[in-house]
């Protein structure tokens, strides 16, 4: 997973961070989110862009915020709590991360 040209490792103890100057594809962000959400899947239906995180899955609000912290460090962005509250689907979360990276 770790390839020198696309990942930097900063401060021991922090997860690998994709530094902000590098572009990240939407598919890549969605894949990462889905991987985090996989343990909360119910039934056979795979998690996709239109999955409503708090409704279609068994994840609670605190676990969502903890997942967001992991994603923040992975993609080197900070998502304010008020913004998290407005996010419902995987697509919306992915777009927020990409927009924040672009602002960087």
């Amino acid at each position: 997973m770790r390839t020198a040209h696309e990942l930097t490792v900063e401060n021991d103890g922090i997860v690998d961070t994709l530094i902000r100057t590098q572009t990240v594809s939407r598919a890549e962000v969605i894949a990462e989110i889905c991987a985090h959400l996989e343990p909360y899947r119910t039934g056979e239906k795979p998690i996709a862009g239109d999955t409503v995180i708090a409704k279609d899955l068994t994840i609670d609000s605190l676990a969502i915020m903890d997942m967001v912290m992991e994603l923040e460090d992975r993609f080197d962005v900070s998502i304010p709590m008020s913004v998290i509250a407005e996010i419902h689907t995987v697509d919306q979360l992915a777009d927020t991360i990409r927009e924040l990276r672009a602002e960087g």
Partner: protein
Amino acid sequence: MGLFDRHAGLLEAYRDVRTTGYDPFQIRMERVLSPTKAVINGRETLLVGTNNYFGLTFDPSCMEAAIEAIRAEGTGTTGSRIANGSYSEHVMLEKEIAEFYGKKHCMVFTTGYQANLGVISTLAGQGDFLLIDADSHASIYDACKMTQAEVVRFKHNDPASLEARLRRLGDKPGHRVVVLEGIYSMLGDSAPLREFVDVCKKHGAYVLVDEAHSLGSLGEHGRGLCEQAGVLDDCHFVVGTFSKTLGAIGGYCVSDDPDFDILRVTVRAYMFTASLPPSIVASVRQALRVVKARPELRTQLWDNVATLYDGLRAQGFTLGPEHGPVVGVHLPDRTTAIGFWRAMLDAGIYVNVAVPPATPNGVSLLRCSLCAVHTKEQLEHMVEVMTGIGRQFGVIPNQPPMRAAAGR
């Protein structure tokens, strides 16, 4: 669709809890006998979950001070601090707390919850950034709902996680306010405050520390983690409560900021609620004197922490990461936690039970809090009782594990 439909999930979980017998959220203290004893369900019960760290609720000098104050000034102030509710004693209490910390200013609130809610939501305003520890108390989270500032969480007790978030803000305009707690209320662990302060200094962030559970218990003079870590001067705001070590109710915030007093006319949780009644102000002032005069209470408290923490650990219980006046005992799930809690109550010992969503990372806990006036025998008995129940529930091995009791 009824008004309460949105709570359907919680209602269901609550029903589950109640089927175990006693409802942990509706426990009645039928008669409180002392800081460490009460009658519950008709039975004399040992209290090990009351945040009464120095046992001052029954301190004769504090009780007398409160009674005298009622006779002199009545039962309540019937008004807020900005109207008719500021008595000389409120002002004296503020002066004494400021002096206790060596800070210039102090504001007293009617509860600790209101102190956090009001101060934090007002300090960081539109265009500012509020950075909070992921395991913050509900009062801090509620302040975040009220503020116009952008709120970002960082990983619990992780200065590197805070630094990453401060770094990402780059040179965006706006103040940065970082909120930390001296001792976290669920697992009894302390913040690595010196490291946090270094990060905050580097990034020009203000530091607010909530010493609710650490007032009295930490530091050479009991001022809390800020004193113990030697960073009192670097912490811009210290918040605390009168409802734990000081044995009453109320909250405060101290600071050296020359303009601090403007908060008296901006913090709504201060302005629009009645002030503390005279009896509480009097007992708190006396309790603060006791804290200063009797450092041995701190020693006794930590001796008791060691007895309980090391005793449980030696039997194989999974505990919070370090010694603290709160000892959190991890249990595998909600049902076990509530069953265990009930078995302890049946055996005459009261502790708190904490289950998701009130706990970090969805853990289920028995939350024990020590008191300076617990006896060693009481706590050894408690370890024995918990060992028996723990073995019955299969959460600890039938023989103590072979490792030595560790801890700080």
